[in-house]
């Protein structure tokens, strides 16, 4: 064996030793390092997601009072129960304002289920309102009845900006019949101008499974809405009762 051969053998042996050290000692650690780095990246992603959820939850907490007021306001349009006395009171008030005589109200048969124009926010189950058909009879002039129809629509209306303005029960008029009044109370020309308006309309109530403010509404902060609310800790859900 010459000296050169011996040097080559020694170099090979050194490289072999170093290679073995890399493969057996360093490489597994490097592999572990990459694995941990991936875990860190995943944890960062989870943290970002959780922080996003927390931010939206905090935003919802800040919106609570406005949302509660909106819910209560919407309860005027679509109450949790039938609220027939309230409806009669509203109709009486509206007809008095328009110089129309509110003659009668009759509950109708169940309406046919025809459409499913339910609104659903992303990820939220659709709302289904229960229909309550009614038949109203009013007596008044053509102009008075016309104004009354407008008033009934104005109980719940949308502004030009799209915002809902609720001041009474949401009613959908399905049919109207106008005919000369035959009550014989008025006489002369005034009698000729008197009409009997028979209106078939539908009111709506929340499903029985839903309360006005939901089954458990968070009582974050002092409730700005009317009604008695138990004000617990800001994050403690509580039952809040409110009368629309």
């Amino acid at each position, binding site marked *: 064996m010459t000296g*050169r051969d*011996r040097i080559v053998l*020694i*170099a090979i042996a*050194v490289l072999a*030793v*170093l290679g073995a*050290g*890399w493969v057996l*000692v*360093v490489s597994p*650690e490097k592999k572990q*390092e990459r694995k941990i*780095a991936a875990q860190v990246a995943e*944890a960062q992603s989870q943290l970002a997601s*959780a922080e996003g959820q*927390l931010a*939206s*939850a905090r935003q*919802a*907490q800040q919106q609570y009072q406005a949302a*509660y007021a909106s*819910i209560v306001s919407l309860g005027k*349009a679509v109450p949790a129960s*039938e609220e*027939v006395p*309230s409806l009669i009171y*509203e109709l009486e*008030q509206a007809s008095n304002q328009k110089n129309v005589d509110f003659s009668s109200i*009759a*509950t*109708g*048969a169940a309406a046919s289920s*025809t*459409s499913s*124009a339910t609104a*659903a926010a992303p*990820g*939220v189950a659709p709302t*289904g309102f*229960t*229909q*309550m058909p009614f*038949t109203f009879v009013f007596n008044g002039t053509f*102009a008075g009845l*016309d104004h009354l129809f407008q008033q009934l*629509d104005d*109980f719940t209306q*949308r502004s030009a900006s799209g915002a*809902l303005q609720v*001041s*009474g029960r949401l009613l*959908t*008029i399905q*049919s*109207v*019949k106008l005919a000369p009044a035959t009550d014989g109370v008025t006489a002369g020309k005034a009698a000729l101008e008197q009409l009997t308006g028979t209106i*078939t309309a539908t009111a709506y109530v929340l499903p029985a499974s839903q309360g006005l403010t939901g089954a*458990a509404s*968070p009582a974050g902060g002092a409730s700005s809405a009317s009604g008695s609310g138990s004000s617990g800790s800001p994050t403690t859900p509580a039952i809040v009762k409110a009368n629309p």
Partner: protein
Amino acid sequence: MRAVNLIPAAQRGGASVGAGRSEGGVYALLALLAGVAVLAALYGHARHEISSRRGQAASLTAQAQQAQAAASQLAPFASFVALREQRAQAVSQLVASRFDWANVFREFGRVLPPTTTISALSGTVGSSATTGSSTTSSTTSSSSTSASKAAATVSSATPPGSVPTFTLTGCATSQAAVAKTIQRLRLIDGVSDVTLQSSTATAVPGATGSAAPVGSNGCAGSDPVFSIAVTFEALPQASSASAATTVDASVPSGGAR
């Protein structure tokens, strides 16, 4: 004189580098040591990285869990706001799906010529299930009647696609006035069709003008009694409610409460 080579025999030209007494073993040892040192440095760095990143991952996971716990604690707020949004959109769609009755009656009053009188007017949108015998009368009764409710979870009673139709019955001074009435009714915005159902003049001998006696059809003299059907365009599809339907809760006036 004999030349003498003073260079040691081991270092004379042609001898290989490192071919000293150790015959290159020293260099090999040095290279080995250097390689081991590099490997040790790499190993140490990797161990340090692993250690620090483990701590970082644990810290991040703990933070994420804390954030999730806080978010879940505030979840009722989020669901409440979602409920409000959902309900507002549903009400908004119902409001948008209504037919503007008041406007139509105003339009009738505007377009009908003075040569006609209306004795009856009826209009219907969609399917009306509450007519005649299906109603139970209660004259201005404030008793809390248990209104029968639709079992199905439906929305508007006047769903999109419903066609509003009106029937006008009345008297005109002449058949030409009936024709004019039909033409005028077509001027109403949204009217898709105006159909004459009947226009009948009953001959009454000697009956002319407004002083003529009222005939059996309720019209003066031989004035024709007409019946006209007015069909409006179908109710449009409810526009997709905006993502954030606002509710103006500060408008209690104007209502009846």
